[in-house]
C-alpha cells in the first residue's frame, strides 16, 4: 500500500486557518496521534501560512499556495508548504529571548520559535521561484 498523501490549496486569507486545521486533524487521525501532535502540527502550519498570507503577497491580490501532507513513516507526519510569494526564509529569523519580563517582551516573533520547538524537522529552500518549507513531527514523541 502506498503511503497516504493529500494536497490542500489555500487562498491568501486568514479565514483559511480553521480549514487547514481541520484538514490536518483528518489526515493525522489514522496514525493515532496524541492531542499534542495534532495541535502542534496545526500551530506550526498556522504560524507559517500566516507569514505567507500577511507578508508574502504585497500586491493585495488573491493568490493560492499549497500544503502537502504526507506520512514518510507510520510515526511521522510531514507538511510541505509551497508558495510563489516573495522570497523569504522565516526559519532564518533571529531567535527570540523567551526569558524577558513582560515590559520588555516584543509583540511578535514567537511563531517561528514555536515551529522550531514543536517540530522535529524544519527546512526552507528557494527553488524555481518558489518558497518551499518542510516541517515534520514524530508522533507520540517522548516528553
Amino acid at each position, binding site marked *: 500500500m502506498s503511503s497516504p498523501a493529500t494536497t490542500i490549496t489555500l487562498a491568501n486569507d486568514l479565514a483559511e*486557518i480553521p480549514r487547514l486545521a481541520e484538514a490536518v486533524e483528518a489526515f493525522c487521525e489514522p496514525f493515532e496521534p496524541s492531542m499534542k501532535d495534532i495541535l502542534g502540527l496545526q500551530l506550526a502550519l498556522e504560524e507559517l501560512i500566516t507569514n505567507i498570507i500577511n507578508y508574502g503577497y504585497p500586491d493585495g491580490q488573491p493568490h493560492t499556495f499549497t500544503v502537502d501532507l504526507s506520512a514518510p513513516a507510520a510515526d511521522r507526519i510531514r507538511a510541505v508548504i509551497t508558495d510563489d510569494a516573495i522570497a523569504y526564509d522565516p526559519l532564518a529569523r533571529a531567535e527570540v529571548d523567551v526569558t524577558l519580563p513582560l515590559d520588555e517582551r516584543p509583540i511578535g516573533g514567537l511563531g517561528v520559535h514555536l515551529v522550531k520547538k514543536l517540530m522535529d524537522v524544519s527546512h526552507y529552500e528557494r527553488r524555481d521561484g518558489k518558497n518551499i518549507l518542510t516541517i515534520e513531527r514524530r508522533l507520540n514523541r517522548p516528553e
Partner: protein
Amino acid sequence: MDIIESQLNSATVLALSGRLDGLASPALDQKIDALVASGVRTVVFDCSALAYVSSAGLRSFLTSAKKLKNANGKAAFAALSPSVKEVFELSGFLTVLEVHPTTASAAA
C-alpha cells in the same frame, strides 16, 4: 472561539472556549479594549475549555496583560489545558504572565 463574561469577587472572568487562532484573536483584543475602557482592572482568563492557542493568541494575551498593567490593573490566566500550557511554557509565558491552577485562585 467563544468568550463568556462573568464576575467573581472583584475580577471579571472571561471563559474562553475553542481555538484562539489568528482568525479569532482580534475579537479578544476588542473585548479587552472595551473592558479596560469601561473601567475593568482585573481580568481572569479561564482557559479550562481553551483547546488551542497560536502565537497570534499569545500576542493577544501579552497585549491584554500590558494594557491592564498600564491601567494599574492585572491579568491572570487560569486552568490551562496541557496543550495550551505547553505553548505557554515554550514561549516563556509561564514566568511572564500570572498563571494559576484554578479560576478561583486567580480571582482570589
